[in-house]
C-alpha cells in the first residue's frame, strides 16, 4: 500500500512546523490522498477520481504577505551592524543572508492560489498545491486521469465514503 502512493506536492517548509498546516497530496491508483499532520496524529482524506466534481482555484495575494514574513527579520537583522565589533557584524551578516535567502526563495516560489476540490459530499482545500507552479503541474498530471476515470465510469449511483 505504501508503495502505491506517489507524492505530488507538500506544504512549504515554514508550514511544516505549524500544527495542522503540514499537509501533502499523494496520487493513488484511483484516488487522491490528502494527508494532514496534527503534531501527533496524521489524518487522511481520499478523493476518488470517479467522485470529483470540480477543482477550482482563485488567485490570492497571500504570496506577497508570505514573503513579507521573511522581509521583517531581514530588515531587523541590519540592526546588528549598529554594534561595532566583528561578533555583531558576523551575526548580522549571517541573519541577513539566511532571511534574505528565505525572502528571495519565497518570491521565487511564485504566486499563490486558493485551491478547492469538491465532491458530492465534501469540499476541501488542497493546500499542498496552492503555489501556481505546483497547481499547473497538478493540472497537467492529474486532471487527465480524472477525466479518463469518469469517462470509463458507467452512469450509475456510487455511494461515496
Amino acid at each position, binding site marked *: 500500500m505504501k508503495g502505491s502512493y506517489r507524492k505530488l506536492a507538500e506544504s512549504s517548509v515554514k508550514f511544516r512546523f505549524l500544527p495542522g498546516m503540514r499537509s501533502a497530496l499523494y496520487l493513488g491508483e484511483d484516488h487522491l490522498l490528502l494527508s494532514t499532520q496534527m*503534531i501527533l496524529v*496524521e489524518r487522511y482524506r481520499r478523493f476518488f477520481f470517479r467522485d470529483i466534481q470540480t477543482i477550482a*482555484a482563485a488567485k490570492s495575494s497571500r504570496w506577497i504577505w508570505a514573503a513579507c514574513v521573511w522581509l521583517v527579520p531581514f530588515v531587523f537583522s541590519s540592526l546588528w551592524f549598529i554594534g561595532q565589533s566583528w561578533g555583531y557584524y558576523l551575526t548580522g551578516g549571517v541573519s541577513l543572508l539566511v532571511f534574505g535567502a528565505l525572502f528571495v526563495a519565497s518570491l521565487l516560489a511564485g504566486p499563490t492560489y486558493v485551491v478547492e476540490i469538491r465532491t458530492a459530499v465534501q469540499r476541501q482545500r488542497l493546500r499542498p498545491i496552492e503555489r501556481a507552479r505546483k497547481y499547473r503541474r497538478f493540472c497537467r498530471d492529474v*486532471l487527465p486521469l480524472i477525466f479518463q476515470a469518469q469517462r470509463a465510469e458507467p452512469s450509475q*449511483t456510487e455511494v461515496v465514503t
Partner: protein
Amino acid sequence: MNGLALCPICRAPLSSETSSAEEFVVCGYCSSEVTATKFPANLRDFADTPAEPIRNEDSPCFFHATNRAAAVCDSCGRFVCTICKVQTGGEVWCPDCIDKNRNKPSTPQFFDQTILFDNTAFLLAFLSLLSGFYLVGGLLVALVSIGLIIYGWARQRTIVKRSRLRFIVGGLLAAVQGIGWVALALWFAHYYTQIMQQA
C-alpha cells in the same frame, strides 16, 4: 449545487465558464480571479438514481429489505443495494465490514488517521527539556519515550512512506536524557553526601 462551480474564496456560484485550468474569470461577488475545472460527475444527480425496489425473485439488500441487491460484499458476501455498496480500489464493501475493518492492518484503505509514535516520543523528550520538567522527572520521561519508540516501531501504520529517522533521533535524545539524568542524580547524591560529611 450540481452543475455549478463555486468560487473557492466566497463560495458563490461562478456565472461564467472557464474552458481550461489556465484560463481565469472574475467572480461576480468577490472579484477574485477564478478558474474551475468541472468533471462529468458534476452533472450526476445522486437523488435521481435511488436504489431500485425489489421485484419478484430478486435478492434483497441485507440492510434494506425493500431494495434490490446490486452487488455482493467482497468481505462478508452479503448482498447490498446501491445505497450500501462502497467501492474502493475495485473491491465492493458493505458498511458493516468497513466499520469492522477500519483499524485493521490488513485493510489500510480504510485508515482515516494514525498516531505518530515517533513525533510523540521526540516531542515528549524535547519538551521536557524545554519546560524544565527534565530536572524532576527526566528519567521517567526518557523511559516513556523509549517505551513509545519500542511500541510504535512496528505499530505505526502510516499509509504513506515515512522515514524512521524521527524514531532514531527521538531514541537517541531519550537515551542521552536518561543517562544524563542518572549521572546528574549520582553527582548530586555524591555532592550531598560530601556536604553532610563536612557538616
